[in-house]
């Protein structure tokens, strides 16, 4: 029972995992992109339509990656090159993404993901690992999309904290002026990582439309992008903590209904409040502790203009 619940929590948490990771990259570059929800919608609809027409799961994922990055490109152009207010620009991207998905989605409303794709995303136990008691059941009897999430977390952690490029990226987010002075191409770093962020958000959206729901329906993302924005703070900009947070929040999002089926009556809506309340508490605690690695990138949400140094 518990193993089944935890395994389901991972599935519910995977879209959050991708989107949170994407927003971590964006924020590490010093940009607060509130368009996560919009980019998830773009990835969800394009991934779905490509999947519907090509019956190819990899092309569907590629479509999601490209459309998420396209949304991010729009944001990057406005905020990096034109130095538009990031909060306002991100919100506009969310409106755009939702409109975009709902327009393209009209023709495929209620369509079901083709069987070839469904069968590609069935749970595939990893030999050896999946036979570890409990842990194997929970983590290693999942679909390949979930495994891709694990890999993305490992790769991101390595990239951010163990490579020169990762160090440079963090420098850009902490102080664009100092990074610029030390010869880092600030705009390039910002563009690349904002786009990478969009690609990951797109994948998170595609997980919803291709695997979780497998039918196109309006409001398919329903606020998950915003949870991801919260999770970034919850995870204090750390991919490993983001994974834990994503699965925790995923679990909370299905807890109420599970409890109800066990005869315990707690409103799902009250449980839904927990992740947000937890994030607030974490934001407060992290300002109190004042620990360097738990703080947001110092240059977050401030535009960089070389001549104003």
């Amino acid at each position: 029972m518990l193993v089944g619940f935890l395994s389901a929590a991972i599935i519910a948490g995977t879209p959050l995992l991708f989107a949170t990771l994407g927003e971590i990259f964006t924020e590490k570059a010093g940009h607060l992109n509130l368009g996560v929800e919009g980019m998830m919608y773009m990835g969800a609809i394009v991934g779905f339509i490509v999947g519907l027409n090509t019956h190819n799961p990899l092309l569907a994922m590629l479509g999601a990656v490209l459309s998420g990055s396209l949304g991010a490109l729009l944001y990057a152009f406005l905020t990096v090159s034109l130095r538009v207010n990031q909060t306002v620009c991100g919100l506009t991207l969310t409106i755009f993404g939702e409109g975009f998905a709902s327009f393209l989605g009209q023709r495929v409303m209620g369509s079901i993901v083709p069987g070839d794709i469904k069968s590609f995303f069935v749970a595939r136990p990893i030999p050896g690992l999946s036979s570890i008691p409990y842990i194997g059941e929970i983590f290693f009897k999942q679909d390949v999309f979930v495994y891709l999430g694990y890999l993305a977390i490992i790769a991101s952690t390595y990239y951010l904290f163990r490579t020169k490029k990762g160090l440079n990226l963090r420098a850009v987010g902490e102080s664009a002026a100092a990074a610029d002075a030390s010869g880092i191409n600030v705009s390039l770093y910002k563009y690349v990582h904002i786009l990478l962020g969009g690609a990951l958000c797109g994948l998170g959206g595609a997980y919803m439309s291709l695997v979780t729901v497998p039918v196109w329906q309006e409001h398919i993302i329903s606020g998950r992008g915003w949870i991801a924005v919260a999770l970034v703070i919850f995870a204090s900009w750390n991919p490993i903590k983001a994974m834990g947070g994503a699965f925790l929040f995923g679990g909370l999002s299905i807890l109420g209904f599970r409890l109800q089926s066990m005869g315990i009556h707690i409103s799902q809506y009250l449980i839904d409040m927990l992740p947000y309340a937890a994030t607030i508490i974490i934001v407060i605690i992290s300002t109190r502790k004042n620990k360097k690695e738990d703080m947001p990138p110092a240059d977050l949400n401030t535009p960089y203009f070389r001549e104003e140094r």
Partner: protein
Amino acid sequence: MIPLKIVKRDDLPRNKAILIRTLSVALSIVFAGLVIALLGYNPIIVFTSMVKGALGTTIRIQQTTLKAIPLLITSLGILVAFKMKFWNIGGEGQIMMGAFAATAVALNLDLPKPLMLLSMVVAAMVMGGLWAFIPAFFKAKMGTNETIFTLMLNYLAIKFVTYLQYGPWKDPSSQGFPKIAAFSDAAILPSLGGVHIGWIIALVLVVLVYIFLNHTKKGYEISVVGESIETARYAGMNISSIIIISMMLSGGLCGLTGMIQASAVEKTLSASLSANYGFTAIITTWLAGLNAIATLFVCVAFAILVQGGNYIQISMQVPASVADMIQSIILFFVLGSEFFLQYKVTFHKYLKVKKEAK
């Protein structure tokens, strides 16, 4: 190397600023038109019917006004906070909590109409203000990031109202349908000119907020804190109290929006009452350049877009999503044009010199 040089403008003549703004709006309409044409509709017909749908008849103008009221009052609230560079993106939640308090009064007290409405207004503004007090307090005392804090409070408020709607406040007489009981007549705002009196409240508030921000000591202090906390501290201002007071005012105005929507539009409380006004208001406030009078015009323009969008949905079977996309395209363009208001793009001089040397 791109031979472009970007220079920050010192000051921009007013007429030139207006020219750049107008050009950007014109360009955005052309671009949106291209997108509409690509989607297979005639852009000229779409645009003219949007205008007709928003302003064509008295009823349509009333509909547009109905949409402008909540946007305008919320924008004014957001404006007070933004002036201080306090990024209140919690308007959604403050609207919800305001509506919640107004509803608590409307459903539980039995008062004569004027007293009832007044109590609802006070309850809503106090509740919205208190909801905004929480992040303001932590910002003032500990420097906690307000963007995330206010954003999270939105979801707490919306989930809380959803809980009420599906749980303890569910109307037993609604045959299992999850909705909260409708207000009695005493709790409903009167109308004037076919639209509830929220429009008068909104117009009065535009003037009041304008005077408050531009012609009072508190308003001046708010903009000093917004410009530079250091300067404010040096001048001996009590920064904590300025942050808390202006944020509570901001939340109070958003709470008032909640009361008006609950009383005059929905005639009850529901989880969808805030209808993204809290977010849209951030955009309108920003586009208005943080000016109370300009906010009025931007909000009306926005309401025209929304109402026009609703109209073409019915009259031309253009899906609502197209209207959303047109809106965001126009926004992107206008936002992008801000760059040209603040910076001047010129060609590098040394390149010219090089060419001449050849």
